[in-house]
């Protein structure tokens, strides 16, 4: 009894001391928590002090030291049996020898086995491990789990488990219907067991982690844990890329933070994620994971934690990010591991829609994709703006300077048996001789125009248009040193003739060469024109107001076209809104500019009126 009391004294004293120190860094909520704790400890204060004094006395009196030490050693042995934690205290030679004997004895009594499963690269490792667990007749906990593309390795303690695992060999089939063997061999204790932390160190780690835990957010920040001042002061090397350190950390998470929602592991020099394989079971509610600024080299490391249902993930600052040619392929690759991800590296990903639910396997569309330099992107956008400004004007003769001498152009009207009535598109059918004889496979040969004079002459015979710029989707298809191929699809309105007010859909492909550093010269031009679906029309005009639609009725003069372009350039507004502003002010440029400036000063112009800066 007396011995028992003496053992407990120092622990209580240490705990209380730590709480006081910790309170300095607590938020208001945590301060309240501390007060509650303090209240429960307060009645024992006097007794605790007594314990502390006794400890000091022991340290000061060498003759008394030996006897109490012997007693404490016995206590620790009991703890060892109970907690299965090795206690290493090299205070004297006798004790050291006894510890060695203890370890050897322990090793003999509970032998270790190394389990290897060569499963091949296509195998889903998480699923395979679940199968092994379900088929194994003895429950087991894998220690120091490791996997790469070709195999799984882990350790188990206890020969009964080893025999049970051997029985599972060749009883699990891969997706290719090949039976998978399981090899079990005697082994030394695994790394993390040989480097296991003492009870005192675990207690210290727990305290440090509690200081880093935000109760309201269920968020644990273990960023740069190696340099935690409390841990460093106690000479604890908590280096999370070491197996034993991560194992200890996950154990505390499982025991003390079961509701963990967010885990920050950034800046810990993690180079692989084998030690996080258990995190699915130890932190089942985890939704947010920060692995930024580590040393993960390939995205495949995420295979080891794909059992998590992550909603937010940070990976920036890892070497793996630079293995992707562009951001969209990076996003696509990460979404393969975490399909429910809504935020990657702090950027929101496109939200799921009903369409995606219907079609989960098809890749999400992107508005535009630009590879290479920003200059190319700007050049294409400027080109399209200039081109369609001329194309939509009274005269299309200005296009002559844009085409190469020997350029060629073709127009195609796709025939779709299930499509809407095509009679209204007669404006484009002048040369369509085969339209009345539809074929499943039909090649246009007659509509090829050759030389720029013939092309522009032909374009001038097509119906007058007003293109809806915000409906444009642009793809850069092909790019070489002096050559660029890009496509643009979208909608336009016909503004004259019997089809006035009709909306058309078009797809245009340009192949251009760089005439000088800034000029694009068209050598190939291909145009598809068709009737759009109601959804397309609704989508394109959703942003515009009914008032804006009225502007499409106008037929602008060449001078007005130039004014719209200039106004758009100076104000930064989209072409259609620039046009509306000028029209509202009766094409008085100066007055329109004054009105715009006044409205902008009052912040009365919505953001969507302006061009996209991306």
């Amino acid at each position: 009894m007396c011995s028992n009391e003496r053992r407990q004294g120092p622990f209580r004293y240490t705990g209380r001391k730590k709480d006081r120190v910790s309170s300095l860094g607590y938020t208001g909520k945590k301060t309240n928590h501390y007060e509650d704790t303090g209240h429960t400890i307060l009645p024992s204060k006097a007794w605790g002090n007594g314990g502390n004094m006794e400890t000091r006395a022991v340290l000061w009196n060498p003759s008394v030291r030996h006897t109490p030490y012997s007693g404490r050693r016995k206590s620790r042995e009991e703890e060892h049996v109970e907690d299965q934690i090795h206690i290493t205290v090299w205070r004297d030679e006798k004790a050291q020898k006894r510890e060695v004997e203890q370890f050897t004895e322990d090793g003999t009594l509970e032998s270790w086995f190394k389990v290897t499963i060569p499963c091949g690269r296509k195998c889903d490792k998480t699923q395979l491990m679940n199968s092994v667990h379900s088929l194994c007749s003895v429950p087991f906990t894998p220690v120091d789990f490791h996997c790469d593309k070709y195999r799984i390795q882990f350790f188990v303690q206890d020969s009964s488990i080893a025999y049970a695992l051997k029985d599972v060999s060749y009883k699990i089939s891969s997706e290719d219907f090949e039976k998978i063997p399981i090899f079990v061999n005697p082994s030394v204790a695994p790394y993390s067991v040989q480097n296991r932390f003492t009870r005192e160190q675990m207690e210290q780690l727990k305290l440090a982690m509690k200081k880093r835990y935000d109760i309201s957010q269920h968020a644990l920040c273990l960023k740069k844990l190696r340099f935690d001042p409390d841990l460093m002061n106690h000479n604890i090397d908590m280096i999370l890329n070491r197996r034993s350190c991560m194992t200890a950390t996950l154990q505390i998470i499982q025991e003390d933070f079961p509701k963990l929602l967010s885990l920050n592991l950034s800046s810990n020099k993690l180079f692989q994620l084998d030690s996080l394989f258990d995190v699915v079971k130890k932190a089942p509610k985890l939704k947010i994971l920060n692995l930024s600024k580590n040393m993960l080299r390939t995205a495949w490391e995420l295979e080891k934690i794909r059992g998590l249902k992550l909603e937010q993930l940070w990976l920036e600052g890892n070497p793996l990010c630079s293995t992707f040619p562009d951001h969209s392929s990076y996003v696509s690759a990460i979404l393969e591991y975490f399909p429910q991800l809504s935020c990657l590296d702090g950027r929101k990903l496109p939200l799921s829609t009903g369409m995606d639910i219907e079609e989960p396997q098809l890749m999400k569309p992107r508005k535009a994709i630009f590879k290479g330099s920003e200059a190319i992107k700007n050049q294409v956008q400027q080109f399209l703006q200039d081109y369609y400004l001329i194309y939509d004007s009274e005269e299309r003769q200005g296009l002559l300077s844009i085409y190469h001498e020997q350029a060629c152009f073709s127009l195609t009207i796709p025939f779709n048996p299930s499509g809407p009535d095509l009679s209204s598109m007669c404006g484009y059918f002048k040369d369509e001789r085969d339209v009345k004889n539809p074929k499943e496979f039909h090649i246009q040969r007659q509509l090829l125009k050759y030389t720029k004079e013939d092309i522009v002459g032909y374009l001038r015979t097509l119906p007058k248009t007003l293109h809806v710029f915000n409906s444009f989707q642009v793809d850069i298809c092909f790019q070489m040193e002096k050559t660029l191929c890009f496509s643009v699809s979208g909608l336009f309105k016909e503004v004259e003739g019997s089809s006035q007010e009709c909306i058309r859909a078009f797809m245009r492909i340009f192949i251009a060469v760089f005439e000088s550093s800034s000029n694009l010269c068209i050598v190939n031009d291909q145009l598809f024109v068709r009737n759009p679906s109601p959804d397309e029309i609704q989508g394109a005009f959703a942003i515009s107001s009914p008032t804006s639609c009225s502007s499409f009725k106008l037929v602008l003069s060449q001078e007005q076209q130039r004014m719209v372009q200039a106004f758009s350039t100076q104000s930064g507004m989209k072409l259609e809104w620039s046009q509306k502003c000028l029209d509202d002010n009766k094409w008085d440029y100066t007055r329109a500019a004054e009105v715009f400036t006044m409205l902008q000063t009052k912040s009365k112009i919505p953001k969507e009126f302006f061009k996209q800066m991306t």
Partner: protein
Amino acid sequence: MASVDFKTYVDQACRAAEEFVNVYYTTMDNRRRLLSRLYMGTATLVWNGNAVSGQESLSEFFEMLPSSEFQINVVDCQPVHDEATPSQTTVLVVICGTVKFEGNKQRDFNQNFILTAQASPSNTVWKIASDCFRFQDWAS
């Protein structure tokens, strides 16, 4: 003179396009695993705005796509000007049709290819230098 040469190029392009379209969509529908062989090593696919580059990525992408049934309505083609692709016979092929991917509804699509001729002892082999696919009615 120039016009006569141009017509010859057009005829060549049309024959190449006709043959290519048959091979491509048959392979896409029925022999999907061989599809990436039709692409040059440096080819880029832009699929509804998503860029895929390199043989391995293309193979993985096509493997991931659900099985398909393509129907071609219209094909248009043009010879690409020498100035754009010096010393490399090149053809632009543009396709419009409908496609049904397994588990998805039928959709209209546009697709365009840039094909380049590869020298071969027996005959001319056309390879895909670029591929750009978009559904007509699937906005971003």
